[in-house]
């Protein structure tokens, strides 16, 4: 059952180091800042958003709204967008993750993906809304990013989980 799938593995319940969380967030920023251009920029998933949502749902008492907001500020500076634009979007994303984390942990990955799409679309909508208020026009293709972010959800989830498991095994062996 899906319930057993996600909950009964003891490795996942183990504490994970802050360094791992920090590294994953920095890696996500790095991925976002690769020189994407043109159509690839439109299709670029928001790695930071996906990783933040992962941590908000799996370790809600470690990564929450505050850390998401800080990541948003970093994204704002690097993107030369207004201070607070990404921060607002990520704040809502984190809240979505916190509010839904119990429900989402019951689901398997496919069901999670559908739920997660809603959160990402909302996040992107907030960002676009702010942009529309400032610039007065909307680039609809920007929403493609929310779709690719959703597609990234399952692989990233599996990857982070695998890394966590491996480090837990190493710990138990030593």
């Amino acid at each position, binding site marked *: 059952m899906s319930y057993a799938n996600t909950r009964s593995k003891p490795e996942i319940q183990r504490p994970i180091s802050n360094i791992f969380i920090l590294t994953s967030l920095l890696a996500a920023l790095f991925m976002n800042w690769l*020189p994407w251009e043109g159509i690839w920029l439109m299709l670029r998933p928001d790695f930071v958003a996906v990783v933040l949502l992962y941590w908000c749902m799996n370790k809600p008492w470690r990564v*929450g709204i505050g850390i998401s*907001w800080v990541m948003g500020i970093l994204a704002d*500076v690097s*993107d030369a967008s*207004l*201070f607070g*634009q990404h921060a607002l979007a990520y704040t809502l994303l984190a809240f979505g993750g916190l509010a839904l984390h119990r429900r989402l942990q019951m689901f398997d990955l496919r069901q999670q993906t559908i739920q997660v799409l809603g959160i990402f679309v909302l996040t992107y909508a907030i960002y676009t809304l702010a942009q529309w208020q400032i*610039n007065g*026009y909307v680039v609809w293709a920007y929403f493609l990013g929310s779709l690719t972010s959703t597609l990234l959800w399952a692989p990233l989830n599996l990857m982070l989980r695998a890394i966590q498991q491996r480090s837990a095994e190493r710990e138990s062996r030593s």
Partner: protein
Amino acid sequence: MIDGTQSFRFFNRGPSPAVRLVFFAVLSLLLMFIDARYRYLESARSAVSVLISPIQRMATIPGILWQQADDFFITQNAHQNLLAENAELRSQHQNDAAQLLQLQDLQSENQQFRKLDELPVRHEFSTQLAEIIYAERNVFKRKVLIDKGSQADVQLGQVVMDDAGIVGQITRVYPWLSEVTLITEKDHAVPVQVVRNGLRTILFGSGDTSQLSLRYMPVNADIQTDDVLVTSGIDGVYPPGIPVAKVTKIERDPVYPFARVSCLPVAGVDNHRQLLILSGMPKLPERPEESPASDAGKHARPRRSN
């Protein structure tokens, strides 16, 4: 599940998520408002940019590696191509050299005439080479970041160009970086002149495409396709006479008061990695305050009236 909820309540974890949401959302909105209206946050922004610049630099490495690999294969395979390009460049260089000689002659002549006429001498501007580190990673903006900042004496409002024409303007200066707003950014304006007949107008960026447009051109204005637009230098921000755009399409619909003129930038706004920053623009005298518009127009005119 149950002990999960209990432990969630049991320990003091600070304010609840809803309270935090409201707090951070309001903080973000406040920051956005302040940032949009005033320029108080620039120092904070440059501080944060210093913090994150190592990661940003690292993120450019794959691109640079890719380019180097590309260059490597070009030298391996397209030897013939390179030879042809070399020959072409050499012939162009000879052409340019001849023209440059003429230009020097003309410059000295022009200076002499201007002295005779007691017109202000045209300033020469010095240039500084900079490299684009990132193209815009924001779908909504047409901006690039270049690798020279206030450490290299870059100043706000300086003009950035490539070998063909104007690319943009510096809008934000960080210690080691600066941000260039491209001329294709929405509502970015450049005062220009048509080379053919000296018609003055203003060129606007359109934002989501790399096109430019002339707004407020009367339907009967004397403008044709393939007209070249150069900077007029009226506002003192852009030096005069640098190519900006070429007219590609004109729609004269008598229903509208203005003709729709779309242009393409002459410079490779989206193409190059190396750009030139112009410095040493002459300071124009202050514009007289509270004078009617017609008066201001007369002030600007004598510089080029002959």
